[in-house]
């Protein structure tokens, strides 16, 4: 009797608790996996807490070293172990992962939250083979960071103009970029001109691509940067790429000594610590400089430099443009989330993904230190208020403006996404590191890469690779 009473008394409480779970995933435990924290993982953790509170589900976050994520996810999905409900990974792997991923539920593909995502992510990076297989949770691209205190200093400006004959501002061409780097390397105002990553395995090749986009991503021939979009012949040994490699290598003179060992992680503190006048990096340098560094208030960000000349791979000659054309390179493309098709809790998993990328949760993540999450929604770019804890107003404007401008640039260059990504980039890294260390001539290195790329394409099936390449470059299928 007493027992019955108790049950009756508890019943409403239980029901009340259930009503608070919307949608109700009590009893569901999701295994979410990504690289070791704090970057990305900490953002997933914060979102997990709010999702758990909302739905009564549980999230277990598992982290692996970045270099092991790809094999780990691929083997697990290939063997259908059902180990992971949500995986956080990078767009370059989508072509290899796509066969094992479930598609985003259609209800998530409409509404305000959906339209708020910048189309470059929504329509290009999140889609593969005509379906939405993944959700961007972090927007990312290479940008140029520079220091306002140096660039706006009257003495520097005068000295620069005297020597180079034009005004010192954020460079819009790579030639200007090297002029400025040279100027600051020689000047006493700062130790070194610029910082870029050169280490093999330290995101080296994305830096190289960022240079190359400005000479090879021909505005009139979309999608011809890496391969010929009709024949799938490798383009990487053409004169445009050669110029990019020579540029990239010559930059070593204006980098701190020992830069061949610098990965992208090393480039950030160099800028934030005030050792260099500029650097090229993802959006993380800006935040680090404004929060942890010695250059607070002086963080300025610009689109990557462009160029006035492009190699035309059709006519095999250099085409010259009157005005510099910006070809900002969407290096890496930011982290994405996906739900493997062997997940037993796909519905709950997508609901969690929705939570992570929701404007509210992601809006907090972008301004929280060390989440590694950078803007990818219109609301992120537009809400300057939100950024006041990180940036001064000038900083926020240039930081967000540069990202927005990069995405909106008519000649934006998309990253390489192909099945067998590692096979292509492995040979690239090997030859690139040889060329940078001066062991082979740049042209020789590029020729080797091109030959190897063509071989790989044949091995994997030229037709398939061509179709995949066209899709990744946003070109319609042939015939």
């Amino acid at each position, binding site marked *: 009797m007493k027992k019955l009473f108790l049950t009756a008394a508890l019943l409403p409480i239980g029901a009340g608790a259930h009503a608070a779970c919307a949608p109700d995933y009590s009893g569901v435990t999701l*295994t979410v*996996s990504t*690289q*070791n*924290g*704090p*970057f*990305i*993982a*900490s953002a997933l*953790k914060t979102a997990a807490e709010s999702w758990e509170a909302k739905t009564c589900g549980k999230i*277990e*976050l*598992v*982290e*692996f*070293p*970045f*270099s*092991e994520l790809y*094999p*780990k996810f691929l*083997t*697990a999905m290939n*063997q*259908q*172990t059902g*180990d*992971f409900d949500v995986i956080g990974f990078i767009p370059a792997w989508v072509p290899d992962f796509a066969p094992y991923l479930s598609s985003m539920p259609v209800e998530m593909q409409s509404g305000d939250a959906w339209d708020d995502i910048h189309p470059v992510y929504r329509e290009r990076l999140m889609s593969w083979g005509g379906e939405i297989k993944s959700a961007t949770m972090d927007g990312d691209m290479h940008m140029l960071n520079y220091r306002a205190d140096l660039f706006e200093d009257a003495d520097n400006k005068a000295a620069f103009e005297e020597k180079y004959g034009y005004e010192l501002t954020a460079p819009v061409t790579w030639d200007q970029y090297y002029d400025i780097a040279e100027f600051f390397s020689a000047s006493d105002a700062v130790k070194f001109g610029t910082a870029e990553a050169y280490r093999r395995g*330290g995101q080296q090749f994305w830096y190289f691509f960022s240079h190359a986009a400005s000479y090879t991503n021909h505005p009139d021939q979309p999608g011809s940067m890496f391969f010929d979009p009709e024949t799938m012949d490798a383009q990487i040994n053409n004169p445009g790429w050669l110029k990019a490699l020579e540029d990239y290598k010559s930059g070593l003179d204006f980098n701190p000594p020992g830069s061949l060992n610098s*990965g*992208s*992680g*090393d*480039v*950030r*503190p*160099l800028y934030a*610590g005030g*050792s260099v006048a500029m650097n090229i990096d993802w959006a993380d340098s800006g935040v680090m400089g404004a929060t*942890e560094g*010695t250059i607070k208030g002086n963080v300025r960000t610009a689109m990557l430099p462009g160029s006035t000349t492009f190699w035309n791979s059709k006519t095999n000659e250099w085409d010259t443009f009157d005005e510099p054309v910006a070809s900002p390179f969407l290096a890496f493309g930011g982290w994405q989330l996906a739900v493997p098709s062997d997940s037993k809790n796909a519905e709950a998993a997508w609901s969690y993904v929705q939570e992570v990328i929701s404007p509210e949760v992601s809006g907090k993540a972008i301004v929280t230190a*060390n989440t*590694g999450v950078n803007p990818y929604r219109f609301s992120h770019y537009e809400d300057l208020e939100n950024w006041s804890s990180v940036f001064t107003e000038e900083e926020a404007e240039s930081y967000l403006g540069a990202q927005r401008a990069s995405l909106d640039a008519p000649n934006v260059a998309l990253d390489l996404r192909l099945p067998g990504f590692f096979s292509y980039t492995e040979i690239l890294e090997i030859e690139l590191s040889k060329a940078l260390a001066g062991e082979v001539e740049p042209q020789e290195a590029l020729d080797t890469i091109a030959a190897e790329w063509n071989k790989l394409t044949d091995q994997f099936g030229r037709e398939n690779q061509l179709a995949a390449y066209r899709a990744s470059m946003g070109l319609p299928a042939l015939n």
Partner: protein
Amino acid sequence: MENRIYRRIGLIGALFWLAICLFPLWWIVVTAFKPPLAVSQGATYIPFVDFNPTLQAFRDAFSGIRGDFASPIFSSLAVSITATALSVLLGSMAAYALVRFEFRIKLLAGVVFAVVAIGGFVVVTEVLGWKVPHALGAMLVLALAISVWLNTKNLPGPVMKNNDVTFWFVSQRMFPPIVSAFALFLLYAELNKTGLRMLDSFPGLVLAYTAFGLPFAVWLMRDFLSTIPVEVEEAAMVDNIGRMRIFFQIVMPMSKPGLVATSMIVLAFIWNEFLFALLLTSSKWQTLPILLAGQNSSRGDEWWAISVAALISIIPMIIVAIFLGRMMRSGLLAGSIK
């Protein structure tokens, strides 16, 4: 006189090596307390003099933003201690058998084993379309049965003896781990589907690591056991005491120093193993080396964070080394290697 010169050379050498051993360790200890700027602006060595130490890196590590350390430490300890105990126990038993008994394995029986196992596997998978793990399991049993039976027959050809058996054990460590780890993963994944949970489970890891440690255990323990005089055992045999009791009550206690040294070496190998741990675990049983390797990736070289993680992983091993060092001092190891 001459002796004194050697002692002096020895002392200088030892001091020199001490410095070489300690400097990197000193470096990670101090680096763990460095603020970022003390790293990025050149080498600094002495806290309070060169830089102001901070506990930030430790706070980050324990607050969980660099990954959860507690659970990997627990898995690492549980798995490596169990697997070490098992492989040293089973390894000593096998080593004992190798020391006290004579094995005669006909080469031909071994060849038949290989032919049946591989040939059968190819036939069953290619022709009958069996799944890889099932086919292999069945063929291993079949081949084993045939060759054990054949071995009792009078076969021509060379005969392999105890030395070859020992070599066989050690040779299992020669194969590059990449392929083994991947194949073992395939096997475990299939077993998982049948409901026997091997991937990301305690038994699965312990089994793999026991096999991993056995070759060392067998070889080293054979060396240690061979120094134990046989007379004691013979006396026991006369009293009609069983082999098992002799082994556990007489032989094992007598070879304690060897057992400890072997355990330490096997433990060190298992504690630090990376590739199997990576493939065979996903969430619950992730071990420490996986977490460690990850400290290197997300924000480039955050040396202070790497140092903290390294410190966390070596503290249990420092205890081990002190333990071992003490035993060597007490001469406990004396007489354990022939």
